[in-house]
């Protein structure tokens, strides 16, 4: 039974990844290309400024993979493998939760878990450390940024598990509605505190030293010695569209996972003779 669930989770995960890839290829790639162009133009402007000021100029290193590979094959493989990973984790969570989370039907459980995956793995971490197109993010802070992001992912997902457990404990006493409200509020408070405590990317030591205090690492306009702007900051509309599409792709991926896995899981459960009184177990039809 668990193997069948895992196989179906992995399969639906791959399909979900493919759907998200098509979305990304059509909507996100033009933005990524523009961001890469911005980055190289900005580097050129910076080099010209440095040369004018008599500073040493950094040389660009050659790309390992061409933009064509990265923008088609690379993003496809990356997103599909991410879908596979999430589908597999999703199936594990589903198998563990089956029959252990109170009055939830097999199909509803699939939707609830997918919503939880979207919120915990992506949306809550995104609220604190949003997705960024290329050219945003400084080399020197990659370690801190990765650690902070993973902390957010861990807190957000583990928090959901704790919230679900607490909610179940409270439900008999408060009723399902009140228990849900209390648990959701508790989750929001905990996440809010964690978000308030963790630094924003612009506040990291390396950034403050080099660029001064900013909320994020988004490139500011380049100025020459006289303080005149010689190259614009990162275009805000591209940033907004990129982040919006990033959320859209994840929403799509988790929706396909939840909706796609539900009937497959139900079929496995029915065939597996999970409940001796077979008609009862398929009442969610």
């Amino acid at each position: 039974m668990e193997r069948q669930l895992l196989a179906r989770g992995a399969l639906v995960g791959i399909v979900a990844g493919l759907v998200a890839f098509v979305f990304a290829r059509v909507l996100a790639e033009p933005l990524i290309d523009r961001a890469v162009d911005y980055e190289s133009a900005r580097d050129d402007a910076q080099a010209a400024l440095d040369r004018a000021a008599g500073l040493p100029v950094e040389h660009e290193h050659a790309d390992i993979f061409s933009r064509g590979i990265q923008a088609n094959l690379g993003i496809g493989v990356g997103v599909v493998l991410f879908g596979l990973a999430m589908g597999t984790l999703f199936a594990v969570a589903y198998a563990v939760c089956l029959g252990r989370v109170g009055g939830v039907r097999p199909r509803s459980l699939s939707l609830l878990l997918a919503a939880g995956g979207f919120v915990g793995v992506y949306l809550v971490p995104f609220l604190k450390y949003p997705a960024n197109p290329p050219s945003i993010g400084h080399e020197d802070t990659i370690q801190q940024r990765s650690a902070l992001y993973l902390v957010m992912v861990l807190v957000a997902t583990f928090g959901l598990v704790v919230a679900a457990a607490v909610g179940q404990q409270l439900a008999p006493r408060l009723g399902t509605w009140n228990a849900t409200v209390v648990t959701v509020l508790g989750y929001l408070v905990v996440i809010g505190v964690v978000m308030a405590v963790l630094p924003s990317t612009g506040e990291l030591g390396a950034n403050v030293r080099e660029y001064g205090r900013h909320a994020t690492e988004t490139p500011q306009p380049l100025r020459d010695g006289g303080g005149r702007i010689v190259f614009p900051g990162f275009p805000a509309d591209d940033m907004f569209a990129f982040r919006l599409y990033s959320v859209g792709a994840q929403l799509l991926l988790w929706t396909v996972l939840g909706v796609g896995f539900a009937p497959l899981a139900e079929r496995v459960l029915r065939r597996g003779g999970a409940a001796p009184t077979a008609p009862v177990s398929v009442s969610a039809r």
Partner: protein
Amino acid sequence: MSSTLSTPRAAATPVVLSLPRAILWLASAAFAAVALYYFVGVDQGATSVFGNDAHIHEFVHDARHFLGFPCH
């Protein structure tokens, strides 16, 4: 919708997988999935399993940005 209005609770929880029996499969699958998550999103950024190399990072570069992971 439901044909079992009289026994809704029974309908809600059709099966409990025996965790002790399934634990090996579930744990291995979870481990493999987390490893995949790591290689797609994190490896060769802050840390690297295969040493000082950027092939994985560069290959999934666009995906990494788009999936929300921090990138260079």
